[in-house]
């Protein structure tokens, strides 16, 4: 566990340093996700966003670290806790927010919602509401990459809860058998809805879950964006060289409930507080930037900019129209 090992886990003996630019990029990208999700939470409370809404707050370093290691053209596929992945993929915050609100300007014209969003332009392949589904779908995207020999790598995310689904292992087996260029990233936030990992998994070291298929695995501190980036660099290079899949278990933590309707009775407030105070992925970068001589003011400016983007996104989402009733019948068949 992250907290038990003081934020540094095995598989990351040395923390590779970031340049100041990299620190700033990570800070800006993670902060945008944080502010976006805070706003989404508010809008949910106001009834602007309906249904299920799974916030990514606390886990920002995982997707941002992977994105920093990815090349243009590499594809992202994830499950329903997907807002962060969309922003990291470069999708427009206002169109993501509009989709959350079920408005016509959303990425899916308001027909997908929080859990089902896609962008072919941004190489973002969902946004899948079925736990475990991203694994074979992401492997399939990698199959297409291998088929075309285009050198792209499929970056496929799912939670530690999903890692107990049978289809994940079916995907591991085929990915290894056919040497598909896919990095499987297990975002281990420790709670599958309300079930703590040790109550659900006989082997809680999820980096070993690919061992039966000879897939190399690494368990890392997913709260440290530098470690995520360095591990993803290694994994992506491994895939790009034609060696087949790679498995990363990124140990992370979600501060909020499983979804907005989660009372979170399964863990203590102290536990959450401790993670926020001692391991926050954004705060870690902020402290390093300050130590490196970046002014508070500059960082505040970055924050203000993130807030501005998010406020505009929220305004757009709230003022945008609902889909035209005729949209009920469109996009059923191509």
């Amino acid at each position, binding site marked *: 566990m992250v907290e038990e090992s003081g934020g540094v886990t095995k598989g990351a003996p040395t923390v590779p340093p970031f340049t100041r630019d990299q620190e700033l990029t990570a800070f800006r990208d993670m902060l945008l996700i944080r502010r976006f999700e805070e706003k989404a939470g508010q809008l949910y409370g106001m009834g602007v966003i309906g249904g299920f809404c799974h916030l990514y707050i606390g886990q920002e370093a995982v997707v941002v670290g992977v994105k920093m290691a990815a090349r243009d053209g590499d*594809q992202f*596929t994830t499950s329903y806790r997907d807002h962060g992945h969309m922003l990291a993929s470069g999708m427009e915050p206002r169109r993501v927010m509009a989709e959350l609100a079920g408005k016509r300007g*959303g*990425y*899916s*014209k*308001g*027909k*997908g919602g929080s859990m*089902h*969003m*896609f*962008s*072919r332009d941004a190489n973002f*392949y*969902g*946004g*899948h*509401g*079925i736990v475990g*589904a991203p*694994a*074979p*779908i*992401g*492997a*399939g*995207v*990698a*199959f*297409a*990459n291998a*088929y075309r020999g285009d050198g792209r790598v*499929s970056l496929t995310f799912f939670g530690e809860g999903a890692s107990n689904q*049978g*289809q994940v292992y*079916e*995907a591991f*087996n*085929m990915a290894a*058998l*056919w040497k598909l260029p896919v990095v499987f990233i297990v975002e281990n936030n420790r709670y599958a809805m309300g079930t703590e990992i040790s109550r659900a998994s006989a082997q809680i070291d999820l980096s070993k879950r690919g061992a039966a298929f000879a897939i190399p695995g690494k368990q890392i501190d997913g709260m440290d964006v530098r470690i995520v980036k360095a591990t993803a660099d290694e994994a992506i290079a491994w895939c790009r060289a034609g060696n087949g899949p790679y498995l990363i278990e990124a140990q992370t933590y979600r501060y909020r409930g499983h979804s907005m309707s989660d009372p979170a009775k399964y863990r203590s407030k102290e536990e959450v507080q401790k993670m926020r105070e001692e391991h926050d992925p954004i705060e870690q970068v902020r402290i390093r930037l300050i130590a490196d001589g970046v002014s508070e003011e500059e960082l505040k400016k970055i924050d203000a900019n993130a807030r501005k983007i998010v406020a505009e996104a929220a305004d757009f989402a709230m003022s945008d129209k609902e889909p035209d009733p005729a949209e009920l019948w*469109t*996009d*059923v*068949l*191509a």
Partner: protein
Amino acid sequence: MTVDVLMPALSPTMEQGKLAKWLKNEGDAVKAGDVIAEIETDKATMEVEAVDEGVLARILVPGGTENVAVNTPIAVIAEEGEEVADTADHAPIARVGEEDKAETQAEAAAPAAPGQTAPQDQPGDANKAQAKAAVDAAAPAPKATSVAAQPTATVAPEVPEGTAMISMTMREALRDAMAEEMRRDPSVFVIGEEVAEYQGAYKVTQGLLQEFGAKRVVDTPITEYGFAGVGVGAAFAGLRPIVEFMTFNFSMQAIDHIVNSAAKTLYMSGGQINCPIVFRGPNGAAARVAAQHSQDYSAWYSQVPGLIVISPSNASDAKGLLKAAIRNDNPVVFLENEILYGKTSEVPALEDFVLPIGKARIARPGKDVTLVSFSIGMTYALQAAEQLAKEGIDVEVIDLRTLRPMDIATIIESVKKTGRCVAIEEGWPQCGVSAEIAMRVQQEAFDYLDAPVLRVTGKDTPMPYAANLEKLALPSVAEVVAAAKAVRYRS
């Protein structure tokens, strides 16, 4: 004591095969387990083993003979020095040496075609009687046994008059459709269990590996959920997978990806991510494979918006519609039928024969009663139509071909003419395809109906194994005839 070696059945649906060659000569000594001959069907080659010690006294069917009916005596094994009479009527003992696949029932029991009205509950040795019935049914003019009633009925209306036709099995037509589309579009590939090296569990992908290589003809582990999902991901990324299920029974492992991932994503992405994929394989009852291998998924898949569902009844439609399915930008569930794989019919000799999806075909025009069916259900419908014609009832038979979108207009037009309708399917009755047809007909042609719409379906039970019960569980020609008469208030 001499024993006959009988032509073995290699699969539950095999009716005849080729005796490829003898590996032993008359007069050779044989012992149990010796391979004495090789037999072939369009699906597989198998070895015939001796089951007893002795001398291969007579070879009754020479090597190279085609169309040898299952259970025909092919040789006689005698004890050393024993005299063998010219006519042999001994106990059948031949066995298949090696299992073709898990589903193979090597028993020499009758793979009676559904709808065949063989007498049941016969006194005496039931097995022997059935075996004899099978020999009788399959022995004369084997070609003629393949849905003989419809030489003109299989020609799609889309085929220009005067087009040259080629006789081929549905199996060959499906393979040709895939091969042609793979030549045409490098993004088309085939993936599934045993599709490559083994040449297809039912030999539908025969020869594809040799022509297109392992990159485009991909053997999978036994992992339906996984490879359906991999196919969907590849289709999202722009390839055109043909995913073969060894049978659609196994697609239940994968139905989540078919429905949740393939069918819904275009809608959920606001039209951005389409899924050009074909899920195909044999659907419904084969013969004697019982409940878990004999389910018809027509109604299941045809309920789902976002899917196209096709279920052809003959080689021509199979070819033209599979080519259309592969080119279609949507997920297509293509439901084939194992019993129909070996049936021969006329396929137009056109360079690029593609049929429109969503169009029914009037397989037989008539004015008194409308029969609507699809896939193997057409066998019952057309045979019933023949029978009814002899009794002066002029039946119109509609082959739906595509189940979703369903060509209701063609049915309605026919019912407006006949005023009477019977829908036929092998699937279960509740919420079945025929239930949908009945509902739509009463809604859209109520004023034209002279009788309630009736249907003939598979019985509302799991599929039994016993031959007599299986026959009862499936629709029959007699039931279709009775229903057609009932809607005309005749008995």
